[in-house]
């Protein structure tokens, strides 16, 4: 039995029927993980020993006849920008290379309580800044569908680990598309929840008003199950939403007949690869055949999302990353003999190029004389982008678009041109600016590479996004294909 092809809900059934033990699962997963690591390089820090200890506890429960939860005993991975008590958390940055947090992020606590078992911490673009995982301070993760291509970013390690069968599910974080874009490139399900739906406590901050944690899974049901475990109000995060959270599986399997689905004309312009467009158009026809009414809509300020994002995110980053000064944790330059030069050298030696570029950009956008022209202006245009969505959702239940304008690109293709690299996130950014949920699922393939379909909804409408995604998945079966990795 190829356990690495199974979803969490399938594994749960096997565990309950005692056809496998949690220890079997962790061992099989560790074997798969280790066999593929030379090829994929998804993990910064494996935690297999701890995983085996946890698995033994789950097995003891099963043997004692106790009921287990839906994620109990399921092997998973966590992006290495979420704090894990006693386990190195690096943000794939030299500046945090030796940082061992003394506490767990709330999502980690919740997954531990749910009994999910962490196999390791996954690679990312340094401090989650990037679209290809080429900005990791350590090494580059490879796309399981074609190892000459990037897995996407910044949660490239988390997406690749699930696509390759190295983890059953994983967590990523999404500031401008960092869950949905790698999910699209790696052909898995990736959800950026509504801002405030999942606690950010213990997530190492990049751009606090945009960052949101969410799951990568093999199918939509697993995505709903992980959301059930991680969503909810958290008093430790003052931006966490004090609302009622649904059972995210409750609408799966229900018909989408009569749904009003919008296709924003601004997302189907010239910049999109013709093969990606063809896959998405076919996906839209499938959705229509399931009873939804599809019509064109408009999000007129879409073209401004990229400049708004590249002013706001760096501005917030420049402030959040001020804490890395070599005093309390992380790397410290050894070549300084006074305090200011220690700060400057520590940061120069510890941060990579992209991080420094964004700190510089953000510091400039916030500096005296430029604040109104750049930062305040961007905040105002953010309002217009949010209003576009509010107006669209008066007429539509959800909005469909490609997740990315192209399939995964090759290594080095865009590293010399930051602006070109930023364009790979052009369809995902607006969703973060508006704080609404966005889901990417595998829509099909173009030249053997997966194409992502993005489904955007109203704030806190995740359960319905999962409903339509599930209907698509049932109709096409795209999600069940896995890359051939020869192991």
């Amino acid at each position, binding site marked *: 039995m190829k356990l690495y092809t199974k979803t969490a809900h399938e594994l749960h059934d096997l565990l309950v029927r005692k056809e496998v033990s949690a220890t079997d699962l962790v061992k099989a997963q560790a074997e798969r993980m280790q066999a593929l690591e030379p090829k994929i390089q998804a993990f910064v820090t494996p935690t297999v020993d701890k995983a085996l200890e946890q698995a033994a506890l789950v097995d003891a429960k099963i043997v004692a006849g106790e009921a287990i939860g839906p994620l109990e005993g399921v092997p998973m991975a966590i992006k290495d920008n979420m704090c894990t008590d006693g386990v190195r958390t690096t943000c794939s940055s030299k500046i945090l290379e*030796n*940082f*061992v947090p*003394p*506490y767990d992020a709330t999502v980690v606590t919740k997954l531990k309580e749910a009994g999910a078992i962490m196999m390791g911490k996954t690679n990312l673009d340094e401090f989650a800044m990037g679209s290809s995982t080429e900005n990791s301070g350590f090494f580059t993760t490879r796309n399981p569908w074609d190892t000459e291509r990037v897995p996407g970013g910044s949660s490239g390690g988390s997406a690749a680990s699930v696509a390759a069968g190295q983890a059953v599910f994983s967590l990523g974080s999404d500031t401008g598309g960092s869950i949905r874009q790698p999910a699209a490139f790696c052909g898995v399900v990736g959800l950026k929840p509504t*801002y*405030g739906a999942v606690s950010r406590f213990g997530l190492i901050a990049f751009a606090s*008003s945009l960052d949101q944690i969410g799951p990568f899974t093999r199918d939509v049901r697993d995505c709903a199950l992980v959301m059930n475990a991680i969503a909810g109000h958290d008093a430790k995060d*003052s*931006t966490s*939403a004090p609302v009622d959270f649904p059972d995210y599986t409750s609408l799966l399997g229900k018909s989408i007949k009569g749904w009003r689905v919008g296709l924003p004309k601004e997302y189907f312009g010239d910049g999109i690869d013709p093969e990606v467009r063809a896959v998405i158009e076919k996906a839209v026809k499938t959705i229509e055949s399931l009873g939804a009414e599809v019509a064109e809509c408009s999000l007129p300020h879409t073209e*401004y999302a*990229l*400049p*708004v994002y*590249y*002013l706001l995110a760096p501005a917030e980053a420049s402030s959040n990353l*001020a804490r890395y*000064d070599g*005093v*309390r*944790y*992380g*790397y*410290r330059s050894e070549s*300084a*003999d*006074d*305090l*200011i*030069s*220690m*700060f*400057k*050298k520590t*940061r*120069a030696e510890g*941060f990579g190029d992209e991080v*420094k*570029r964004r700190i*510089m*950009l953000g*510091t*400039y956008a916030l500096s005296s004389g430029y604040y109104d*022209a*750049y930062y*305040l*202006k*961007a*905040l*105002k*245009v*953010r*309002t*217009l982008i*949010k209003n576009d969505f509010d107006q669209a959702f008066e007429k539509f239940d959800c909005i469909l678009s490609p997740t990315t304008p192209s399939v995964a690109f090759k290594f080095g293709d865009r590293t010399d041109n*930051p*602006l070109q690299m930023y364009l790979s996130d052009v369809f995902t950014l607006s969703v973060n600016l*508006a*704080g609404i949920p966005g889901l990417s699922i595998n829509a099909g393939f173009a030249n053997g590479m997966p194409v992502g379909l993005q489904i955007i909804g109203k704030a806190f409408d995740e359960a319905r996004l999962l409903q339509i995604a599930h209907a698509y998945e049932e109709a096409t079966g795209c999600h069940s294909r896995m890359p051939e990795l020869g192991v």
Partner: protein
Amino acid sequence: MALTKAEVEHVAMLARLQLSEADVQRYTTQLNAILDYAQRLQALDTKDVPPTAHVFPLHNVMRDDRIDPSMDREKIVANAPEEEEGFFRVPRIV
């Protein structure tokens, strides 16, 4: 408004980043390209548009004023590059 090398050096000082001459050159070019791109926002009239810093209408979040146990000092200084007697040690300031 083109960004000059002197301004890049000033911003680096504010951001506490030591840059080499080559870095200054590169960032001047790259930041100018990004800021040029950002100029397109000026085409929009936003005179009567309120800014959105956060997507929710968040108000102050208060908690009860009570003393909870804090984390052990030992755990906190465990990650310090240099510590002495429970304090963070840094180079001489004055």
